[in-house]
């Protein structure tokens, strides 16, 4: 019973094994990035980057068809352009960064959908928007593994300035330029992680792999170090449970994964011991000191 539920799908089908590996890597690498997106109040930035990448991927697709390399290069270029341009626009015009990003990503999304449908079919378009977890070929898997490894390593290297810059930017700016550097490095990490995530979950859902595990982890600990370690556990387990649910329920995989992550967020919000609703309502007995 348990075997047929949890193990058999992976033994029987190659595409399930590939999905398992890809989703494991994604859960491991994307969740810590999401923790910092959330704590730096940049959740919208992650969203914007994912949408903005679409036209770049689409141009790669238009030029070279389904070539992972071409689409990735296109996506990276588009992602970096949007991050830099919106940063400059926010600094030198009256708009704040939030508004500029929103404007950019709406335009990019429309532009990307236009480009994809000009060259490909509706099925292609769905691939781009919602990913293709169950059809990961070698280059896609490799890309997911590489981007997530890279973001983990870079995040580990720049962890200290990133944390200090998030808590007390002025303090760090009086001591060194590392805060600004860390911010730019972090934006690059967001772009790279997103390029990997959209392989599995598409431009519309890819950001979920970063943000949702982070939000869930937020309700279990009040310490950033623990949070960065907890979030990937949520990410990996929700990804795999979602995959199995979609397999047995014969439903769309990407949405099933995101819904499972959403369920994890809901459970954490209800029962999390660091600010969850139920522990708050139960009013645990207090100590005398």
């Amino acid at each position, binding site marked *: 019973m348990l075997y047929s539920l949890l193990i058999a799908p992976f033994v029987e089908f190659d595409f399930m094994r590939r999905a398992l590996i890809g989703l494991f890597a994604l859960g491991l690498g994307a969740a810590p990035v999401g923790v910092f997106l959330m704590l730096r109040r940049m959740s919208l930035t992650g969203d914007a980057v994912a949408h903005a990448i679409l036209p770049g991927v689409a141009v790669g697709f238009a030029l070279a068809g389904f070539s992972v390399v071409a689409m990735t290069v296109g996506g990276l270029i588009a992602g970096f352009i949007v991050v830099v341009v919106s940063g400059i626009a926010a600094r030198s015009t009256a708009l704040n960064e939030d508004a500029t990003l929103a404007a950019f990503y709406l335009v990019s999304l429309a532009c990307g959908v236009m480009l994809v449908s000009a060259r490909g079919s509706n099925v292609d378009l769905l691939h781009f928007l919602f990913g293709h977890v169950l059809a990961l070929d070698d280059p896609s898997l490799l890309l997911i593994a590489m981007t997530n490894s890279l973001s983990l390593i870079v995040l580990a290297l720049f962890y*200290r300035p990133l944390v200090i810059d998030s808590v007390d930017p002025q303090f760090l700016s009086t*001591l060194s330029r590392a805060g600004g550097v860390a911010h730019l490095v972090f934006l690059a990490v967001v772009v790279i992680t997103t390029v990997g995530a959209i392989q599995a979950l598409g431009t519309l859902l890819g950001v979920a792999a970063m943000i949702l595990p982070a939000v869930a982890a937020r309700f279990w600990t009040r310490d950033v170090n623990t949070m960065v370690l907890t979030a990937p556990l949520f990410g990996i387990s929700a990804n795999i449970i979602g995959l199995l649910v979609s397999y047995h329920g014969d439903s769309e995989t990407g949405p099933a994964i995101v819904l499972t992550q959403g369920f994890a967020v809901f459970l954490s919000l209800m029962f999390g011991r660091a600010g969850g609703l139920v522990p708050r309502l139960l009013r645990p007995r207090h100590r005398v000191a």
Partner: protein
Amino acid sequence: MSDSALVFDDVTLGYDSHPVVHHLRGRVERGDCVAVTGPNGAGKSTLLKAINGLMTPLGGRIECGARARRDIAYLPQVAEIDRSFPLSVGDLVAAGAWRHCGIFSAINGTMEARVSQAIGDVGLTGFEQRAIGALSGGQLQRALFARVLVQDAAIILLDEPFTAIDNATTRDLMALIGRWRQEGRTVIAVLHDLDLVREHFPRTLLLARTAVAWGATGEVLTIDNLAAARHMIEAPDPHAPLCPVD
């Protein structure tokens, strides 16, 4: 020069060409303990920011002795701390080790000992694992003093460190300032409590855009000087003529 921690060479500071600190000249000797006082809008916080390199003078310059800017510890008036960030008190204080550890080096045993020593010195032992969001205003200020302790800087700038802080905490933190003085560090503190200034700070700068008086505290804080400082006009005048001095 070699004995001065800071030299203000005709320094003018301001926003949009309106001076907030106007042609300040003077020096702070190494090991001095200087209180900066004056009415609101007199340029006190601006002066500390400029010493720290957070703003560039409109005119003149601030010489920082032979020391690098990194050897300054600065506690701003309203710390821009995101208190909702899930960070422990221990990690906040350990950030003071930046000058020694930078981005990549590990915080070694000596540093760890210094961090827990500093937390003990400000009376926060037992709070190491507490999230900074769960601290009271006074406790956070103690933690920030601990971070300054860990920074081990030659020049320490404090901007109204005792605003909204109770007497006991003020006394404890004031004792730390006394200790820094004995250790030969240069302390510059913006303060409004003149009794505190008279009691603990040998030298005072009374600032009201220009230096109304600067010297031994007893000679600076006279009734005449304080009255003169109060008469400073705070609002910028858009039709003010250009300053003829430069």
